[in-house]
């Protein structure tokens, strides 16, 4: 079966600084795959390259067989990207924002309507969707943006730090939304520096530190391999090797 995402020997330089040293991993359709590692590890850099907004310095990235450099336009039709700490247009209402994004993806009004409906259901914001986004809390904005990310039925969703800065209740809510959205076949590439939450959310994880992927596996498999009780301890063990 064709992989949703195939990253092979990917390198990225910012000037002379090499942020990614030849990383490789694959994500299957319907799988939730997480990059875990501390700040500055290169997670956002990887996600931006997959989202076609940064160019690789060397190596290849294929999304459903399409190359991020040659087929960027076609890839953009089937992916959806939610940046870390993203905001939305403060002068638009929640519905206004969803409408704007739906119109960007679909030309058929019926399809647009379906997208907006799906997103509104996932947000759970109800009447507040008619208020300006400037009046939303951080959790509400994140929920709105996450709903926008999955409303177009992307074949690959790229989500950077889905719950950073959110309180526990909002974080659990977001995690559940990601889980249920991936249930109908959407592949997810996400990143987090919160290794505990990733255990509950992801099918497989890659441990990344200072631009290098040290190991890849299921949370359960990694814990057994290194004989640790949680991923945080696994991470410390792996990175110290």
């Amino acid at each position: 079966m064709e992989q949703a995402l195939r990253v092979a020997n990917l390198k990225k330089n910012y000037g002379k600084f090499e942020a990614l040293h030849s990383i490789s991993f694959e994500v299957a359709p319907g799988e939730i795959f997480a990059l875990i590692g501390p700040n500055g590890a290169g997670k956002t850099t990887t996600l931006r390259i997959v989202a076609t907004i940064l160019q690789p310095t060397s190596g290849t990235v294929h999304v459903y067989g399409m190359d991020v450099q040659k087929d960027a336009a076609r890839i953009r039709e089937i992916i959806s990207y939610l940046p870390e700490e993203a905001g939305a247009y403060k002068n638009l209402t929640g519905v206004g924002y969803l409408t704007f994004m739906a119109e960007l993806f679909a030309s058929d009004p019926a399809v647009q309507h379906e997208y907006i409906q799906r997103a509104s259901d996932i947000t759970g914001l109800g009447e507040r969707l008619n208020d300006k986004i400037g009046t939303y809390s951080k959790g509400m904005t994140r929920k709105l943006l996450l709903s926008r990310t999955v409303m177009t039925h992307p074949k690959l969703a790229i989500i950077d730090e889905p719950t950073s800065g959110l309180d526990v209740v909002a974080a659990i809510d977001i995690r559940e939304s990601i889980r249920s959205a991936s249930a109908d076949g959407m592949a997810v590439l996400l990143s987090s520096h919160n290794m505990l939450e990733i255990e509950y959310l992801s099918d497989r994880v890659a441990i990344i530190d200072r631009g290098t992927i040290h190991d890849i596996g299921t949370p359960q498999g990694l814990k057994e391999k290194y004989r640790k009780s949680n991923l945080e301890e696994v991470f410390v063990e792996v990175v110290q090797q």
Partner: protein
Amino acid sequence: MRRFLVILKKELREMLTWQTLMPIILVMVIYSFLGQVINTEQKKQAAPQPITVVDFDHTATSQALTGTLDKVNFKVTTYTEGTVEDAVHRANADNSSAVLVVPQGFERGILAHKPQEVQTYTIMRNFSLVGMTGSVNLDAALSAMNQYIGDQYIRSAAPGLDPAVVRQAISRRSFVTVGTRVAEADPQSIAGIVTQQTMVIPIVLMLVIILASQMIAASIAGEKENKTLETLLSTPVARGALVTAKMTASGIVALVSAAAYMVGMKSYMGSLIGDTGGTSTGVSQAIQKLGLVFNAQGYVLLGLSVFAGIMVALSISVILGAFAEDLKSVQVMIAPLMMVVLVPYLMTMFIDINTTSPVLRWLIYAIPFSHPFLAAQYIFAHNFIAVIAGIVYQFILFVVFASIAARIFSTDRILTMKLNTAGRMRRGSWTIGREGISFRRRK
């Protein structure tokens, strides 16, 4: 195209908020209001001026003088009794601001052909600019009286000679020529009207360029700060459509505000030039005849020049906005552009481009924003080549800057490039954080 329109709609909705519209509306209202106020003040000036005459002479001559003042638009109140102090006191109470005292023995002195003296008192109670110029009118009173006495002397010394001929044996008809056209007109009033037209455009243009540049740079920097730009860049919108939609939206806002400013300014300027209730038919006919009005061709050229100037400013602002990391740094990024707009604005106001030194002249020509400022002057002077050359130059610059902007947006520079003054990478160094380029500032 469809996605371009979706983005354009969103940009307009973002830009046309009360925060952005309020300053425009305010400027428009303030200027029209100022114009109205100045107009009514000037009308007040044209109404008969009250003057109090204290006549201690009680003679035919002194009474005739009072009559003369009536004819030159004074509303005269005469006292023949009491002291000067009383008269001033009463004049003050009547809200009159001028008192003229004709001393006893005035007629006798005139008949003896001796120079006479009257005293005038000006009551100052209003220290506004318009209020204080009121005192000048006493000169009009004095010269009317002198003329009356002078006429009397001429009549008695040379009967049969018309005093008007003695006063003004030579009169003139004045003509103004522009290019090959000639019209009979007063050069002062022609100059006044032309100045009015050529001054409004630079002021409005400067305001609009500053407004539009800030708007688009803030829009891009704001999207970078909010990460909404990253989201947009990962959607199927063409990068070119993204940039052009932003430029079109701020261009539309610029044109709307230009129209608003124009309305406000015209009323204000009109009042400054003393253009109460339209120019007189004689002057406006002369203006027509001299070709000092914009015909369709003139308007098209001026419009193109202004449009090109705004487009150059917008394309530069896109690049500056891309360098800014957040909204706060936009003002700093855009400051150099503001200087470049202000320089030709001031220069074209205070320097005659035709007589200044060649170095300065070419410097002014090199700045793209000089051309819209100069266009009106050149169109009036029928120097169309200069106007068209300016427009072509501006469009070339626009194409250059717009392609740089498009390149920035179509590569990852839009996300990675920033002027790093905080010295995140190396202390004391300026770095444009992208592959290959890094400038080091020596300490």
